[in-house]
């Protein structure tokens, strides 16, 4: 993708300034600035765009425990920060430029839906993104992609203008150098090539980007199975995600690879080449067909079996380094779907946590209803809609 950027810059320079180097320099400067911003502020920007809130262990003990377990299992040195996003859709993502400045975020909707084993699987997946520095890789890639898209977009617009107003000779200064027939012919060829490149470059860049992203997703799934020693947990979590169709509120194309599943959930778009994530159904099948162990080698074997291919997804070196790891069974109440009661309690717990964090006040009315009052209404009288009793909020 870097080569594409250099190429595009050079062509822009050639067309507008009769000087490939100038365009190249402009492209590199834009890319450099965006990279620096992404490197130092990327996680903050992403977290604030997503509306994430940092939580402490007392807010949600189980989530904190599970993250700590995965931190130990993956051998991370520093405990990542944990954020919650108040959003009913189901998703989770990792941020941070390196393992020492990392965070995992999860939507309140997902936290409600998952049991302990499933949560562990999802967190294991995110911790793998942190451990393998995927966040840095993918944000650098997306900045590169972004630069290419922006440059080609504006350059193609400007060239159109140039083509229309410059009488078809070419944009900008190019028009003034029309002194020989041969030069004009070469200019037209360059112009046509440039326009072609402007159209094709963003497409190619995206395809490369998507391919990298998908590969990292498989690796994160494999690592999650390795850390938790229980691939069925992640598989079952992904099944729950599959059922949900609610798109994430604040996702953009650039932030998509950070999520555990594609936040757009466009069911019509099943085209494998243009997706940041492998199809969920396939990820589930691979995890479900892991037999005999939770090591990378077992995942690789399951991958080949499901994809019916001879080329694995995990390099033999890392597969060998991870050795053999046995599977474990579910924790109590794991594999069988827990009774509705558990599901209700979990939802109430997570919602009540969100209310606490947003400074809501809870009033218990004698009629059996509970009223949860936002800060803006506190201090006024609230009538219980059920029995009509008035309460001082």
């Amino acid at each position, binding site marked *: 993708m870097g080569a594409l950027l250099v190429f595009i810059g050079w062509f822009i320079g050639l067309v507008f300034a009769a000087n490939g180097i100038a365009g190249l320099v402009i492209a590199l400067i834009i890319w450099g600035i965006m990279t620096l911003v992404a490197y130092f502020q990327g996680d903050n920007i992403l977290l604030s765009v997503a509306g994430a809130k940092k939580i402490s262990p007392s807010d949600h*003990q*189980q989530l904190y*425990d*599970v993250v*700590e*377990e995965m931190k*130990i*299992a993956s*051998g991370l040195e520093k405990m990542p920060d944990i954020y919650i996003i108040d959003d009913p859709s189901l998703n989770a993502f990792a941020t941070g430029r390196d393992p020492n400045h990392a965070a995992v975020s999860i939507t309140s909707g997902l936290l409600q839906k998952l049991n*302990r084993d499933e949560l562990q699987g999802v967190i294991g997946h995110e911790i793998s993104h942190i451990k393998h520095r995927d966040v840095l890789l993918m944000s650098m890639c997306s900045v590169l992609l972004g630069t290419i898209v922006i440059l080609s977009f504006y350059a193609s617009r400007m060239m159109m203008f140039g083509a229309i107003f410059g009488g078809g000779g070419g944009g900008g200064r190019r028009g003034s150098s029309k002194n020989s027939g041969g030069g004009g012919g070469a200019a037209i060829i360059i112009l046509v090539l440039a326009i072609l490149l402007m159209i094709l470059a963003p497409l190619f860049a995206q395809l490369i980007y998507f391919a990298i992203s998908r590969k990292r997703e498989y690796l994160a799934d494999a690592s999650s199975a390795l*850390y938790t020693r229980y691939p069925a947990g992640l598989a079952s979590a992904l099944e729950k995600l599959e059922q949900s169709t609610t798109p994430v509120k604040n996702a953009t194309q650039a932030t998509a690879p950070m999520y555990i599943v594609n936040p757009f959930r466009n069911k019509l778009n099943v085209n494998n080449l243009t997706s940041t994530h492998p199809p969920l159904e396939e990820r589930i099948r691979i995890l479900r067909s892991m*037999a*005999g162990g939770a090591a990378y080698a077992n995942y690789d074997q399951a991958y080949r079996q499901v994809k019916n291919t001879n080329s694995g997804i995990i390099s033999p070196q890392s597969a060998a380094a991870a*050795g053999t*790891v*046995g*599977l*474990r*069974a579910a*924790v*109590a109440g794991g594999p069988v779907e827990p009774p509705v009661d558990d599901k209700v309690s979990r939802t109430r717990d997570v919602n009540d946590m969100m209310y606490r964090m947003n400074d809501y006040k809870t009033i218990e009315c004698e009629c059996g209803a509970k009223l949860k009052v936002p800060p803006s209404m506190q201090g006024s009288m609230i009538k219980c809609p059920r029995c009509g009793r008035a309460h001082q909020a």
Partner: protein
Amino acid sequence: MWILVVVIVIVVLLLLFLWGSYNGLVNARNQVKNAWAQIDVQLKRRYDLIPNLVETVKGYKNFERDTLEAVTKARTAAQTASTSGDVGARSAAEGELSGALSRLMVVVEKYPDLKANQNFLALQEELTSTENKISFSRQAYNDEVLQYNNKVQQFPATIVAGMFNFKKEQEFLQATTADVERQAPKVSF
């Protein structure tokens, strides 16, 4: 004259080799110690949790005494073993404790009241998490031990190890009973 130079070069090379392998060994041994400290933290945490757990469960009438006593006894034994400094004895005792705890958790399933108790649920979550952390840090510890032991045994570092008395470390082998039960059936191809 040139013999002197050769001798000096050989001596310097030898010293460099000594220096390198010694540092490598120290490094690996420190990694093992670090990993051990990680397990130790979690094991101690488990000792602290058990009295609370026993206290909470005891309040429920007709709760099986034997199961509770087994847990208390196993905890005392494990704590005694922890002062001995012998990894083998310790891992056996801790394995016993894990077994007793998982039996207790099975018994608990029969008491729906207990499962509705907020205090108990919080303890249960903490215990589950501690068990997980023990098993994950044991894996990390054993990996470090394997690497260190390989270093100690392999030529030529083994000479240096012998000179400075680097001994093999013991793995925390005893898989907890819970792990044994959880082991998936072996598939043979």
